[in-house]
């Protein structure tokens, strides 16, 4: 999967950073989780867009009403919003006043276009339209795979080492493009961060973490260096691989370009000495990340924040602690024993193909089916028995873990109803009931198609056949028969929401376990059609 994450910071012209504060700003923030053909649905792109829009209003100096948030637009809708942005800027600059524009996109993209579900918007056309907006300074931030290609299409001079030469070359007018990855890399989402790596660190930086000189403002330079370093470090350990934030500038002028003005912290959240691991602090309810630090055991750590409600997550080696904190005028100390503890979930890789996605997969399924004739059945009929009912029920539970995006392995437990046979007598009828329980392992190969996942599955293990015989006076005799089983299935999962869905499955099972005194063996397996629920996490 690819996303274009566009973070934005627009600074006024030669008047310098102070003047930039007074330069009216207009922003168009776009986020779309919708997958295109062959792409997997994104999870956090639209949320990231909302947080960026909130940050622009909260810390970016943008007035309310001048930040337009568009979620999951069509191609025509997106271009219409760009046109509307141009119109507003043109009206604001009609008397020659400067204006700053931000365009932010978070979603899927291919090498030369943004992917908006089934539609696309060519990068070249988008760039042309954005540059046609009569803004003094335009910042484009793209969070998507191969987003570095946005600038490359126009041949803008790349910033080979922006962190060292940005100040010497930075002007206050023009275009700055911050891309989440190079034109050949994938951009990634993280279920742990509940965001993309790039957007997360950019927002953390803009909220103050990137303020190296402590002047209360985060410049484009500071934000880029912070985001570059933290994104590279975080993605180096993922299965998809390293992600290098790229920047392209075409700026004129002098001075720093402030991107945000973080609020001055007036209280603190303190982590106790026993806390150890990577700490993430989010302000609620927006879940805006305000701090991300590494905490060592043995010393306390105070994090300066504004009064409000926060969630503090402490990620250790194997567990994640989620803690609540609501510092007001007085600081608060996190009590680890009051925190919710959960096992770590691997980061979801985001790129051109499917990532591992949720690792665990659980399904429960019920079905009806019919068995096959065998010598045991023939013998029963020879002895005058007839079957009650043409079909038998089957219940199954599967728990699997994903070692590969398209593979699932795990264990299964099935209860295969064997039916009931009956022979009338002069007294009470003779009855035989037979069922089989199977326990074993399975492997599944999957092919996702948006919400639908098609799969083929094989399973094998141990079976236990169980019979109950009731004689003509009502006395019952129970017997058990150990054996083996095998099963093959074709099915389809339909994911209604991210974690829950329905599954439809055609299963054939083979479980020759039940014997009689005459040497006949019964295959308790069935051919069933089943429907059930699935959950992944």
């Amino acid at each position, binding site marked *: 999967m690819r996303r274009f994450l566009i973070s934005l910071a627009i600074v006024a012209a030669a008047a310098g950073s102070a003047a930039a504060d007074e330069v009216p700003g207009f922003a168009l923030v776009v986020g779309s989780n919708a997958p295109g053909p062959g792409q997997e649905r994104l999870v956090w792109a639209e949320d990231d867009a909302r947080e960026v829009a909130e940050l622009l209003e909260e810390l970016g100096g943008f007035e309310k009403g001048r930040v337009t948030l568009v979620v999951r637009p069509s191609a025509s809708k997106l271009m219409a919003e760009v046109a509307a942005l141009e119109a507003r800027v043109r009206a604001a600059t009609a008397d020659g006043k400067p204006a700053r524009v931000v365009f932010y996109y978070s979603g899927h993209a291919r090498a030369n276009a943004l992917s908006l579900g089934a539609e696309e918007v060519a990068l070249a056309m988008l760039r042309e339209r954005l540059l046609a907006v009569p803004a003094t300074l335009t910042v484009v931030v793209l969070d998507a795979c191969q987003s570095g290609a946005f600038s490359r299409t126009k041949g803008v001079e790349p910033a080979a080492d922006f962190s060292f030469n940005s100040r010497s070359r930075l002007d206050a007018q023009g275009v700055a493009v911050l891309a989440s990855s190079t034109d050949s890399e994938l951009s990634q989402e993280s279920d742990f961060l509940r965001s993309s790596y790039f957007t997360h660190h950019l927002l953390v930086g803009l909220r103050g973490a990137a303020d190296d000189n402590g002047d209360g403002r985060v410049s484009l330079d500071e934000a880029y260096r912070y985001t570059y370093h933290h994104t590279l470090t975080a993605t180096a350990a993922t299965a998809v691989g390293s992600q290098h934030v790229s920047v392209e500038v075409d700026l004129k002028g002098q001075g720093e370009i402030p991107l945000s003005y973080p609020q001055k912290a007036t209280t603190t959240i303190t982590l106790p000495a026993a806390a150890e691991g990577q700490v993430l602090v989010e302000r609620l309810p927006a879940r805006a990340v305000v701090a991300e630090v590494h905490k060592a055991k043995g010393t306390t750590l105070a994090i300066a924040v504004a009064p409000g409600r926060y969630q503090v997550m402490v990620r250790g080696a194997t567990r994640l602690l989620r803690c609540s904190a609501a510092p007001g005028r007085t600081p608060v100390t996190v009590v680890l024993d009051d925190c919710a503890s959960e096992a770590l979930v691997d980061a979801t890789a985001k790129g051109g193909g499917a990532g591992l996605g949720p690792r665990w997969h659980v399904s429960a399924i019920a079905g009806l089916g019919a068995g096959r004739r065998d010598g045991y059945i023939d*013998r029963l009929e020879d002895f005058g028995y007839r079957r009650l009912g043409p079909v038998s029920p089957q219940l199954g539970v599967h728990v699997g873990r994903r070692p590969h995006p398209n593979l699932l392995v795990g264990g299964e437990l099935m209860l295969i109803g064997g039916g009931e046979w009956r022979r009338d007598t002069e007294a009470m009828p*003779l009855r035989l009931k037979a069922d089989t329980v199977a326990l074993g392992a399975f492997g599944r190969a999957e092919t996702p198609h948006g919400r639908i996942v098609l799969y083929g599955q094989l399973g094998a293990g141990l079976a236990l056949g169980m019979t109950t015989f009731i004689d003509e006076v009502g006395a019952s005799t129970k017997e058990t028969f150990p054996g083996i089983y095998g099963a093959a299935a074709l099915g389809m999962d339909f994911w209604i929401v991210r974690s829950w869905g329905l599954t439809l499955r055609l299963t054939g099972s083979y479980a020759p376990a039940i014997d009689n005194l005459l040497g006949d063996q019964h295959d308790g397996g069935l051919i069933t059609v089943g429907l059930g629920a699935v959950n992944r996490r």
Partner: protein
Amino acid sequence: MRTRVPMVAIALACGGATQCGQIIDDRGFDLWCGESLCTWVLEKGEIAPAATWHPGDRGVELLGDDTAISQMTPVEASDGTCVRFTLVADVAEDAEVRLQMDVFGDGSAETDERIPTSDWRKLTYLVRMPDDYSGVRFRIAKRGTGRAVLANIGAEIAGDAECTTPAVAVSRPDGAFCAVDADCASGQCYEWPGEWKDVCGGCDADDDCPGGELCTIGGPAPGWLAVPSVCVPPGAHANGLRCLRDAECASGRCVAGVCGECREAADCGGAACLPATAVAPARCDRGRGAGATCFTGADCDSGVCSGAPLTGCDGRLDRVCDVDADCPGELADPDLHSCATVGFAGGTCQ
């Protein structure tokens, strides 16, 4: 008047003398009365329950080297003429097991098939019955010491098209319906009054009887057969027995088809003549005190009438019997029919 109640009229809800097509009772050998089967007659030898495909589903093992079991069934021509016989058998090589069918149950088997050596194989036999038959005894006999276990024996009426062999040849016993003399073992097929078909029997008219004997209605006969005619000396029938003419009765009076004491009061010397009914012959009312003549205890003040018991099917005089099996319908529904004491011939109040 003697009548023979068609078996079909007293058949079960499924119609005919079969239980919804099944001819044999307890086909699975599930009902045991002690060491014997409840619905199969152990003619000789010993039998025991034996496990089959499951310990709880038992068949019957024919023990020893000369064992036979049989079951008389009321199946008749109106049920069908093609019989499918099936059984599951485990028969050892050194056991000779034979399946026999005795049409009319007269003791002579019309079919005799050897059941081959079998390892719990299901065997099927189709037999074309005569167009007009009533009653079949199924008999299974074993010779030899080898193991023989039978399970799930069934006999049912099949479609006529399934039986492709000629009908079994039957020499009909007395009481069996017939068309011509050659049908009968006696060589005599008579048009018998009261029956809707001709019947194999001992006589057709007095001329068929020797030495002045009279041709009349005979005595007890199996319930699946009509009561054949017999030759009897004049006056041989006591009061209460069926008759056709006065000369057959010891009293000289055949009243309403039953030998009785009187026909009118004048026959009773002034006493009243009680009329004949289905359960009592015509008789004089000579009081109810001790010593008075009676037919049943109801005729006596003491309620006790002693004499030679006279038994009839379902407690009626229209068909004499010795055992329950002499009564029509008893095989199909033993709860409804039985041979019971009707009264006492020459009875005296006690």
